[in-house]
């Protein structure tokens, strides 16, 4: 006969702190012990709304001077105004378009060079030996540190701007691609050879396909780094671009345009990341499942 236990609190009624401390089962049919699982979307939305509300309240009560913290309404007005009248000689759309072009030109150039170089590094010790020291050396250096050198070498034109963003994209993409090549299992390669594959066929049908998930991850990280470097790239002799717009606005202490520019860059970067994630789901549905 089964013993009856005294009615306890259901686990999901436990206090938040207790659930946090103990890896308890919080819902029916939930697995024990895996930390950090479950959906977090709702919590993220709440966080975003809270930050916006806090911003709105603090700015609305004039706790801080608008010079330091413009209100959300001011920022929204700037989006409309700069969208139609422009700021610093160009409209918001032109600023955005120019920046998008710079980042994507650099990203594309990086795809065309970093992926083949990463593949070569993964597949040949000679290429790995050649490219490893320069990439590993320059990768951790902040782009602002070598920006002066790039300007001295390549002038203040468009080349320097795209080159700076390109360098930021290049390292993570090349290293990811290289790691992707190394991720292919030796059994898969042996299996292909045993089915009569030539060396070229093994690379084409096995190595390249196995590397694809990591190549796409590298592209995602790369384009993120590209957006991170945008403002640095547009510091010198730019006539348009979101980074230029922010720097120009900060010189005139137009803080609401600065904040607006930050938000626009954030949104565009978020969009390009979502695009990459969609491509990833389409191209490598097997990722993480085998």
């Amino acid at each position: 006969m089964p013993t009856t236990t005294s009615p306890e609190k259901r686990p999901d009624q436990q206090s938040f702190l207790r659930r946090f401390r103990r890896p308890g089962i919080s819902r029916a049919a939930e697995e024990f012990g895996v930390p950090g699982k479950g959906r977090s979307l709702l919590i993220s939305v709440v966080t975003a709304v809270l930050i916006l509300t806090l911003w709105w309240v603090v700015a609305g009560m004039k706790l801080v001077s608008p010079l330091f913290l413009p209100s959300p309404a001011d920022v929204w007005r700037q989006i409309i105004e700069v969208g139609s009248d422009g700021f610093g000689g160009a409209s918001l759309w032109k600023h955005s378009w120019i920046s998008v072009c710079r980042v994507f030109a650099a990203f594309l150039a990086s795809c065309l060079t970093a992926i083949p170089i990463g593949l070569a590094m993964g597949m040949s010790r000679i290429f790995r030996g050649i490219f490893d020291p320069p990439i590993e050396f320059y990768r951790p250096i902040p782009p602002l540190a070598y920006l002066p050198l790039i300007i001295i070498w390549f002038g203040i034109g468009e080349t320097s701007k795209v080159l700076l963003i390109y360098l930021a994209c290049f390292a993570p993409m090349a290293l990811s691609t290289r790691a992707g090549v190394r991720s292919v299992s030796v059994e898969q390669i042996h299996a292909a050879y045993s089915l009569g594959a030539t060396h070229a066929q093994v690379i084409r049908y096995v190595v390249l396909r196995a590397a694809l998930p990591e190549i796409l991850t590298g592209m995602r990280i790369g384009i993120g780094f590209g957006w991170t470097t945008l403002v640095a790239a547009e510091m010198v002799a730019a006539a348009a671009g979101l980074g230029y717009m922010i720097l120009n606005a900060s010189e005139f202490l137009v803080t609401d345009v600065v904040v607006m520019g930050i938000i626009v860059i954030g949104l565009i970067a978020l969009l390009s990341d979502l695009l990459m994630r969609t491509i990833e789901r389409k191209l490598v549905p097997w990722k993480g499942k085998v």
Partner: protein
Amino acid sequence: MSRLEIRNVSLDYPGQSNGNKVQALADLNLVIEGQDFVVALGPSGCGKTTLLNLLAGFISPTRGQILLDGKKVRGPAKDRGVVFQKHALLPWMNVIENAEFGLKLQGKTLTERRKVAGKSLTLVGLEDFQHHAIYQLSGGMQQRLGIARVLTSDPDILLMDEPFGALDALTRDSMQELILKVWASTRKMIFFITHSVEEALFLATRLVVMSPRPGRILHSFDLDFSRQFLETRDSRAIKSGPEYIELREEIFSIVRNQG
């Protein structure tokens, strides 16, 4: 009729320091021919996987040679199909694409590929799963696909490296029966590795028991439980018969005394 001959094969793995090499196989001789189902049995570290890798051509012997129909083995080729312990399927291809991969490498047309691969899938009972993704298959189904993929290329011999080692006991039993049916209908020779005495007894026409460090063949048994199964289709009766149990205990004690 094919013939795979292992002639005085030794293999040393280079050790950490000079002269400190590990002898994995010592002076091994074995002939597999006709419709032999040869099972190599031994504890881990007895060099049985090394032996399979030598036959597959993934490594080459330190001394001696391996001959397939009189020709020296010099690397992997499609005359020796390998089924791996972990399936080694290609997850970016679906079931039928994996099954026909060998023919694709040979440049065969799609219709031809589908025809042959469809037959191998039917043979292993996967004909209804042609367009499934690899990660949608169970472990047993993945291994069956691994077998189908090899059959499509029509090798002379199947080399199987503990193919059912990672499966649960029930799936394992049905896979053993499946491989015997495949063996009977394709009439190929099979070299099969396992550390399970029961599995070895049930499958082998020839069972070789290996000893560890350096790997040598200790005993060789000629068996016919697999042929009995193909006639009666009753594996429980065979596995509970006195003859099977007696041999099982004998081989257990041989293996156990090896440490």
